[in-house]
């Protein structure tokens, strides 16, 4: 079975190119790129629309086990396929936490049965994500854990964290953390500043993130661990990250799409769909994060997909749960950065697909011969008004409801097979 996509605008993050061409898919991999003959293949004329490597999304929350009413592997997988996400790297902050090989195997089985896209589960770094004892990192890695993280629970005890890092290092395992000083940010719902004061909400200084990052990086320097900061959001953190990279530490960092497209003022009159963790920041922070993505200082953009049902959100702001669904809106939201002129498509795809693939040691993220045919075909300009009821996720807590967006996925391929769209 051969498929030839012709007349496609090929977005190649590896070579930084954006040009018309064709791409041949055979046996689930990319068989040829560029000027390809249609010999015996089913030909699809892309009509000049974009074809890019599928998005590799680090940090997706699927609420299995524990809260399947919020999101299941089936619904998350459908949302991912519709959003051009071909690999979901899932979070272990479920109920119970994914902290043993047995739970991990359950998750993998469910994911394989139910999700049309690739699922790579991460495992907890400490048991129950409690920050006390490390999990069976070796067994979990053998069972397929992509990385180790306690998600938004900070491992507060540096001794425990250092030991986890040292042990993970011996297995070449990736440690992912959410840098934050948990005592400074305790109870906070928004970022400190004029808006927080006006609305009378409990606030945290952006400095709490920098303090957390400084500590983590000191421990990385001490242990030599492979480290990824999953969700940086403030300008104050960037010099710390730049220094760690310049020092040659094995450090990368990500940013969520929300912190690139929204700011603290979007909360407006206590709109809880805009309550995320870390909280939305100032406009200066947002622009600084975009520039850091453009320069390559920030490596990865992720959706930080966090489904919450109505009951968790229809509460006073302080009491409402944090998080937003974003698998399906990641691509059009990220296109805002392109349409606003901050960044070009190959650079964007470096952060959405190539860098996360590299960080996890995957072959995806490239338009190279022999790479898996995980691809997304999309119209970068197609406009639409977001209606949350159309989302495939079980939870509809999107901050983009009612907003004008541009960029629509036409089709998504995983291993050469179409998982979304009709060609």
């Amino acid at each position, binding site marked *: 079975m051969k498929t030839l996509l012709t007349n496609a605008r090929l977005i190649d993050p590896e070579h930084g190119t954006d040009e018309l061409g064709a791409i041949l898919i055979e046996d689930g991999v990319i068989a040829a790129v560029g000027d390809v003959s249609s010999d015996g293949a089913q030909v699809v004329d892309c009509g000049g629309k974009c074809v890019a490597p599928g998005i590799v999304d680090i940090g997706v929350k699927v609420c299995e086990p524990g809260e399947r009413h919020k999101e299941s592997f089936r619904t998350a997988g459908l949302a991912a396929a519709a959003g051009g996400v071909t690999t979901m790297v899932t979070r272990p902050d479920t109920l119970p936490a994914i902290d043993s090989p047995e739970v991990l195997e359950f998750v993998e089985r469910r994911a394989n049965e139910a999700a049309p896209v690739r699922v790579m589960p991460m495992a907890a770094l400490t048991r129950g994500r409690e920050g006390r004892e490390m999990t069976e990192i070796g067994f979990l890695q053998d069972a397929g854990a992509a990385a180790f993280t306690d998600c938004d629970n900070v491992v507060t005890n540096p001794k425990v964290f250092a030991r986890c890092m040292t042990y993970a290092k011996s297995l070449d395992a990736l440690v992912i953390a959410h840098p934050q000083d948990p005592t400074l940010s305790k109870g906070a719902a928004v970022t400190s500043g004029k808006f927080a004061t006006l*609305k009378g909400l409990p606030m945290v200084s952006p400095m709490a993130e920098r303090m957390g990052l400084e500590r983590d990086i000191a421990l990385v320097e001490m242990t030599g661990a492979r480290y990824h900061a999953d969700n940086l959001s403030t300008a104050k953190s960037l010099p710390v990250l730049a220094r760690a990279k310049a020092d040659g530490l094995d450090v990368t960092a990500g940013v969520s799409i929300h912190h690139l497209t929204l700011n603290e003022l979007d909360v407006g009159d206590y709109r809880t769909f805009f309550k995320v963790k870390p909280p939305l920041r100032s406009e200066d922070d947002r622009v600084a994060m975009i520039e850091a993505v453009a320069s390559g200082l920030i490596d990865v953009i992720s959706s930080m997909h966090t489904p919450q049902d109505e009951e968790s959100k229809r509460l006073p702001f302080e009491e409402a749960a944090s998080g937003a669904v974003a698998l399906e809106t990641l691509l059009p939201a990220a296109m805002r950065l392109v349409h606003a002129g901050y960044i070009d498509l190959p650079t964007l795809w470096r952060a959405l697909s190539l860098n996360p693939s590299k960080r996890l040691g995957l072959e995806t993220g490239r338009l190279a011969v022999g790479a898996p045919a995980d691809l997304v075909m999309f119209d970068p300009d197609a406009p639409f008004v977001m209606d949350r009821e159309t989302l495939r996720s079980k939870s509809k807590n999107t901050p983009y409801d009612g907003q004008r967006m541009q960029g629509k996925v036409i089709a998504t391929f995983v291993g050469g097979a179409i998982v979304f769209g009709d060609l």
Partner: protein
Amino acid sequence: MTFRQKHLLGIEQLRPEEITTLLDLADKYVDLNRRQQKHSDALAGLTQINMFFENSTRTQSSFEIAGKRLGADVMNMAMQASSIKKGETLIDTALSLNAMHPDILVVRHPHSGAVDLLAEKVNCAVLNAGDGRHEHPTQALLDALTIRRAKGRLHRLNIAICGDIAHSRVARSNIMLLGKMENRIRLVGPPTLMPSQIDQFGVEVYDDMRKGIEGCDVVMMLRLQKERMDGGFIPSEREYYHRYGLDAEKLSYAKDDAIVMHPGPMNRGVEIDGTIADDINRSVIQEQVEMGVAVRMAAMDLLARNRREQPNEGVYV
């Protein structure tokens, strides 16, 4: 008459002329309240429910008296003892209440924004009686009325708001109201009790009490909100009193005819010296309580009039 609000959720939504309309009407209710026959029928036949999710004696009784004087059927719900303890959400509580067809809901809640949330879900006029650290509009209005009656105007005054600004919804509402009416506002207190970027609200910030109240027409003291403090904001109450407590010596820096205000309840010997609080030549603290009833009567009267004019308009569900 200019007052186009459906609810009274905060000072933020009010325009200066609406504030003036409300205060003018409140002045009339002050006169009514001083008569022997204190009754009006402005709210006759209407049902007013007071929902206090946070303890309050003074504000709740003020709203209750205001409603009764205007002829409303007033009911107090002790929310702390009720279904909220059984796990019912705020919205479910609101919807159940809504089904009983109240006309006026008076709500106090410990979380900022909770009253706004509730107002979206019910089919009646909602008055915010204090939400978290956000707003306490009737307090700011009663303070404004007190100032206007004592000083003869509500503009171009030097007003110092002193003490625990960070935890105070009274301060936020007052800053907005007095700012809208074009007064010069100074905030005085230790920097640990100043909220972030408060200097961007068109105020001057002082951490020296004497400099802060120098030449002021109005000295407004705030209560030190010990119950909202989750860590050490001040070294001790005695050091706080020494540096920021209002006594005769510090007050001597203000204008000779400056008035002293306090929203109550007072911590005597912490933020204010008892003799100052009781000095009838300087302190208008008792007048504030009196104005409170009148302002609440005016607010409920205006909202009820708007409701009669446009019974089915708006976002009601």
